[in-house]
């Protein structure tokens, strides 16, 4: 294996691979479509120390032709005992064999997943960000009403992101806050803070398809978009407003989702989502999301300036205007606990 076919976030590819492989390899998780191409690595004590993601061969991804990602450095590098050389060699061999098999398969499912993983990889490492958001709701007669909210997001490397949404307008909901713990697998946890009663209220975890603040965005549209929440199928390459895009179909894993499938357009160069079509439970086209005004932050992370969601069945639409993006603001887990809900203003 040559180093050129590895893409590593920390640049110490072979050393890390060998170290991880030296730790006991095996115990693959239940095979789901979404996770089929992930290989978890465990150490002697059974702690999960890393994951190898095979993304298949995608020459279109540009230079580097990533075949393998080691997403997470071993947490307990110093404490992981290196096993016997024979075991290490076996582990490495097994890992590489598995990856080769995954790469060879190249089904539309693998390819779709690979694109989603690449999009996720490119957006990982932001740590935290905050933004302000104006939401403009329009009914079919063109009447508008406006909401203002602030969002704070904390990246959680091993799981879904944590997010806090604070309502500023309309004024009757000022001080209301929604705390969400996203999870890669299983339902998200959500709490709503009602300032009048000083009450923190847990929300039913099946609350996914409901409209967010009366808008055309459902809770699941605005929640943390983890790769594991869908299974994928690559459809085609297509020009969207003269931008080269990959078109990928994805299917929500959660039965509480309001959609049977979504069609997502990623641009080929930066893997940003440009457009999503949502199909309802009757498999009819329900909504279309258009995302514009991307800007890059910290030289790496792309964030949208504008999102426009149209509901084709009701004629209503919602526009989200984002501003004041700030990254790595020093937010920590403590700013996303239940006590923090009572503090937000």
């Amino acid at each position, binding site marked *: 294996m040559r180093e050129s076919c590895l893409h590593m976030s920390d640049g110490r590819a072979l050393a890390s691979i060998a170290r991880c492989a030296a730790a006991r390899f095996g115990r693959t998780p239940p095979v789901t479509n979404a996770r089929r191409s992930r290989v978890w690595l465990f150490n002697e004590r059974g702690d999960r120390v890393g994951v190898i993601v095979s993304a298949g061969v995608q020459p279109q991804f540009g230079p580097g032709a990533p075949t393998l990602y080691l997403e997470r450095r071993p947490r307990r590098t110093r404490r992981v005992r290196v096993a016997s050389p024979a075991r290490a060699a076996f582990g490495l061999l097994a890992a590489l064999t598995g990856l080769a098999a995954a790469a060879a398969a190249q089904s539309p499912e693998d390819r779709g997943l690979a694109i989603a993983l690449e999009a996720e990889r490119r957006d990982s490492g932001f740590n935290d960000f905050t933004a302000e958001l104006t939401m403009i*709701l329009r*009914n079919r007669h063109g009447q508008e*009403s*406006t909401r203002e909210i602030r969002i704070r997001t904390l990246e959680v490397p091993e799981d879904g992101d944590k997010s806090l949404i604070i309502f500023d*307008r*309309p*004024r*009757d*909901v*000022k*001080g209301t806050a929604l705390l969400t713990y996203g999870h890669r697998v299983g*339902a998200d*946890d959500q709490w709503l803070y009602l300032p009048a*009663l*000083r*009450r*923190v209220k*847990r*929300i*039913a*975890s*099946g*609350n*996914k*398809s*409901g*409209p967010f*603040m*009366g808008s055309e965005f459902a809770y699941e549209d605005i929640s943390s978009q983890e790769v594991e929440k869908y299974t994928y199928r690559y459809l085609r390459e297509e020009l969207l407003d003269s931008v080269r895009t990959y078109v990928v179909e994805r299917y929500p894993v959660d039965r*509480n989702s*309001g959609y049977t499938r979504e069609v997502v357009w990623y641009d080929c160069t930066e893997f940003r989502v440009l457009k999503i079509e949502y199909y309802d439970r009757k498999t009819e086209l329900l909504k279309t999301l258009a995302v514009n005004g991307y800007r890059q932050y910290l030289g790496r992370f792309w964030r949208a300036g504008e999102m426009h969601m149209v509901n084709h069945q009701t004629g209503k639409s919602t526009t989200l205007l984002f501003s004041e993006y700030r990254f790595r603001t020093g937010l*920590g887990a*403590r700013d996303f*606990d*239940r*006590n923090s809900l009572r*503090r937000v*203003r």
Partner: protein
Amino acid sequence: MTRQCLRILSPVVAVAVIVVAPAAGQVSGRATVESRVFPRSPLLDTQHRSDLSLILEPELYLELARGRHSFLFEPFLRLDLRDGRRTHWDVRALAWRMTARSWELQLGIRKVFWGVVESQHLVDIVNQTDLVENPDGEDKLGQLMVYVALIRSWGTVEFYLLPWFRERTFPGAEGRLRFPLPVATDSAAYQSGARRRHVDWAVRWSHTIGAWDLGLAHFSGTSREPRLVPGKDRSGSAVLIPHYDLIHQTSLDALWTKGGWVWKLEAMTRSGQGSRFAAFTGGFEYTLFGVLGTGADLGILAEYSHDTRGVEATTPFNDDLFLGGRLVLNDVQSSDILVGAMIDRNTRATLLLLEASRRLSDGWTLAVEARAFAGVGGSDFLAGLRKDHYLQIQVAWHF
């Protein structure tokens, strides 16, 4: 609020306003006009068929050092047309907060809510109920406290030191939704010689473990819930004298959610008010998301309340079933409606309720509330309310 309390608070409030107001804190709040109509003629001839109130609830909030320090001031004023006791003011909050990575400290007057169930608030004990506001007991008086929270990986532990007791408010002679005899709030009896200066304390552990939210708490001090003992006031008329006992109360609140289900339980045991007793309320809310082919959610609620004291209980919910439905339209106006019935399994006395609210425009909201009492006998706990069906309309301006 008593005069003594007023004397202590006035300078504090004045200083707070003078210091903080020019520092460009956030000022917000609401002003509400409330109207109540009682369709049935009153039980007592001192009472009226209607009521009108104006409520002011401004809020001043100031943050310093990137939110590590914050200050909150929330006065409250109600002017009521009919009931002199309902015309009252309070400081709902006047507190300084310091927040650190693993702890939090608050000094001053605050409101705290504990609990998970809908039909009553069994374990919520830190603040006194402001009963003149609403018979549901959800409105609370501000409580002076020293509050420390320790945030650990195994949960949050909160300590409350509560140095000043607040007496429960009760409607006056002209007010409706009250006991047949007026409560003599000016001649309350205390078990503690320190009366309202008795220092109460509470400690609470709470944690989220996956789909579970758990809370375990202990309170020691003056009961927020008085025993009402028939007696005579200074002029010799029959009244109810509130007796505030010293109690110990240990409580549990738990919530579990999966899919559309939220299961809830509140349980407590109390000693010091007669012999030790226990009470619990448990049940579920099941939500059907996206009903009627729209974005509306329909929640079905069922809760059961039990109190081991039976008919001797100081609350009406000793063996009661609550059934209700909540429709949340998820529309632009945030319309929602809750209807429910609390049924006493022994006497069949039933309390029917309806609560609905809707945004009228940015800054204006409308809330409608109705309660009716069916099959309440003359000897029932709620006998005084048996003719007090009412419809309440609130129009609020949020600023």
